[in-house]
Structures are given as C-alpha cells and as structure tokens.
C-alpha cells in the first residue's frame, strides 16, 4: 500500500512539475534562420502603458492599467497600477533597491512588489547572465537558454510566426513563469500574456495603450539614483 502511495505521489509530481525541456543540437542540415538568439527585450529606455486583465485560477479578477518605465542600460524599473477610475493602487521602483511608494490592499501583501518587479524585468529586460545553450526543441522551434546570475534559467523560444516565448525556471529547473509576446503587431509589446506559478497561480493579459521612448527623462532618475 505504501508503495502504491509513493507511486501515485511520484506520478503526481511528474505531472505537476514542468521542467527544462530537452534541447537538440543544431545539425548542419538544420541550421536556424538566424545565428543570433531572439531578443525581444528593450534596447532603450521606454515608458509603456498597458490595460491589464488579471486571472487567478482561470477566473477573471478585474482589469487595471499598468504603467511601466524601464531603462535597460541601468535595469531601472518604475511601475504603477491604477484603476480605470484613476485610483493609484500601487507604485514602486527598483534602482535597483526596491522602494514601495504606494501599496493599497491587496497589493501590499507578501512578496507582491518583488514578484512584480521580477515579472517586469522578465518581460522587458534581457536576462542578467549568459547564454548556456542554443538549439532546437522537439517541435522545431529555435531556443536560447540563459542562466542568470541568480542561477535561474531563462529560455527564449522563437515560435514563429506566432511570436516569442520566454520561460523562467528555478535554479533546480522547476517552471515558474511563461511570457508570450505576439508578433502580429508593429510593437512586440502590443499583446503580452504572462502565466505564473505561485501559491495561487495567476495569469495576466496585457494590451498596449501607449509606448514612448524616454532617454532624456531618465537621466534625471539616474542622477537621483546615484545620489541615493
């Protein structure tokens, strides 16, 4: 009986834990279209405003507006969440130290700020680390596997022509995040889907409202950041 329980538990764990997919080497007859890895990440400072639809356990929780300010050169991130009515629910920045400017319930709980900044970095900033492997997945998609300084793994997969996927795995290879970026629009951040594995799994659908580059504006932020 004990053995059966163990077998069931093992099977359950195998089903519930997605791990790093196997990467096949690139064969000479199967060379990828591009020698470089897909890089859907920001190259210059940007401000992006998105409509965000949040779901927990597949059930829609509400719709909010997200404002994100990102500088890839310094990895500075500033973000805010507000309701359609203009009520600011959350505001924080990472310079890189986290600073919460405003957090109303339920955005004041636990690791919300840390997770949110990490999610923003995953979507908009190139991983901090190095590419460990390039290759082809079993379905033929091209993949580049990064290992971050923290030890976490990030797979950037070109699922063309649909879009680009970013998967994040823990140091131990357990799946944590999936980001899907559509390729149907001029701006790659027009439509973003993020799925997260947490104590309460959640997903976010982001639809771009406006985007603008902002080099001059962030110089002030940089100087402020260096003073702190």
């Amino acid at each position, binding site marked *: 009986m004990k053995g059966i329980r163990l077998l069931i538990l093992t099977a359950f764990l195998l089903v519930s834990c997605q791990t790093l997919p196997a990467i096949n080497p690139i064969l000479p007859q199967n060379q990828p279209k591009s020698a470089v890895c897909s890089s859907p990440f920001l190259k210059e400072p940007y401000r992006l405003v998105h409509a965000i639809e949040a779901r927990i356990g597949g059930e829609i929780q509400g719709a909010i507006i997200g404002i994100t300010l990102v500088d890839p050169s310094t990895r500075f991130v500033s973000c805010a969440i507000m309701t*359609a009515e203009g009520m600011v629910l959350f*505001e924080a920045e990472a310079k890189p130290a986290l600073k919460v400017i405003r957090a109303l319930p339920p955005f004041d709980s636990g690791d919300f700020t840390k997770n949110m900044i990490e999610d923003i970095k995953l979507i908009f900033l190139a991983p901090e680390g190095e590419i460990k492997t390039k290759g082809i997945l079993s379905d033929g998609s091209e993949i580049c596997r990064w290992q971050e300084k923290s030890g976490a793994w990030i797979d950037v997969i070109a699922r063309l022509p649909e879009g680009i996927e970013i998967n994040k795995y823990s140091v131990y290879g357990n799946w944590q995040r999936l980001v899907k970026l559509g390729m149907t629009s001029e701006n790659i951040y027009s439509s973003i889907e993020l799925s997260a594995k947490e104590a309460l799994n959640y997903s976010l659908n982001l639809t771009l409202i406006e985007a603008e580059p902002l080099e001059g504006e962030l110089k002030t932020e940089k100087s402020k950041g260096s003073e702190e």
Partner: protein
Amino acid sequence: MKREYLILLFLLMFVLLPYSAFAESFEQLRLDSANIKTVQARFVQKKQMKILAKPLIAEGRFFYAAPNSFRWEYLKPLRSIVISGNGDAKRFIMSGGKMVEDKSGGVQAMRIVLSEVVNWMSGRFDRNPSFKASLKEGTNTLITLVPVGQNMAGMIDKIEISIARKTMAIKSVKIIEGQNAATIIDFTDVEINKAINPSLFQDVE
C-alpha cells in the same frame, strides 16, 4: 477596495453638485438638489503622475436618475462600466471582446458606499463626516473638500470643484492625491432632467 469605489462615487457627486452650487450656502444646495431628476454628461479624465510625462487620458459618459440609478462608463482606454439600477451596483469590464462582471470583493464594498451617495444626492455635502467642505465665490465657484478622518489618509489630500458661475456648468474637478499625483475631470454636453432610457441602468451594452 472600498476606498477605490469611494473615488468613483465622488465623481458622481461632482456631476450632481454644480447645478445648485451657485447657492450661497450648503443649506441652499440641499434645497436645489431636490430639483435634479436626471443628469447625463460626457467626461474626459486626465491622470497626472510623476511616472507619466504627459497625462493619461480617459474618456467616458455618465447617466444618473433619481433616486439612486446611475451608469458611469469609461469608453477608453480601458472600457469599464459601473451600473446601478435602484441601488444594486455592478461593475463590468471588457474581457475577450465582451463585457464581463467584475466579481472582486470591491463590488460588495461599493454597495455599502452607495448609502453615502444618497446623502450627497440630497445635497448633504457638508454632513459627510469624512470631509470638511468649504464654498468660495469668485469668478468661479470653488468647492473644496478636505478629508478629516483616517479613511482617506495617504490617498486624497483634497478635492477642488470649479464651477463657472455664469453658466452654472462645472468646469473642472481636481482630486489631489499628493505632491505628484492628481486626477482632473472635465465634463461636457451636460444635460439636466432630460429623459433617460431606463435600460441604460440595467443593460451593459
């Protein structure tokens, strides 16, 4: 989330307020408010924040019918509607191309807050213990509401409502949330006591 809906309900108050705001006292306001049966208007909302270089613009429309039916609708950038037919408030948001009901806990809180709106709609602006109200006459009538309790602490510093004295039309509403954030709402095409189809307070589309 209760506080979030308080903001929305302040907005309702702003639309109703000006048509009696030329009165010289809050007592006169109460008497004049009794004449308002319906209100409809369009609005443009400008959100100012430090993180935004230029204000984020939202547009929408508003309908009210006495005693307690209203529809506050954002058309863009994020479509959402709060409707209340006879006090039963529901919030809807756009999801997957259709309007779906927002079932977060805030809706229940909104029902509680609605009881406060009944007071406002009766012109009892100076009787809400959460705010200290003052009225100043000039070229424009300026009504200032300053929170007195802890309920709004850290959220709203003050609310300024500017009304053109000649036309009695509301000019602007400014919700000052702190040193670096404010919400400004401009109303246009305001119509008072014009018939409104009751379905607007029941149907989302």
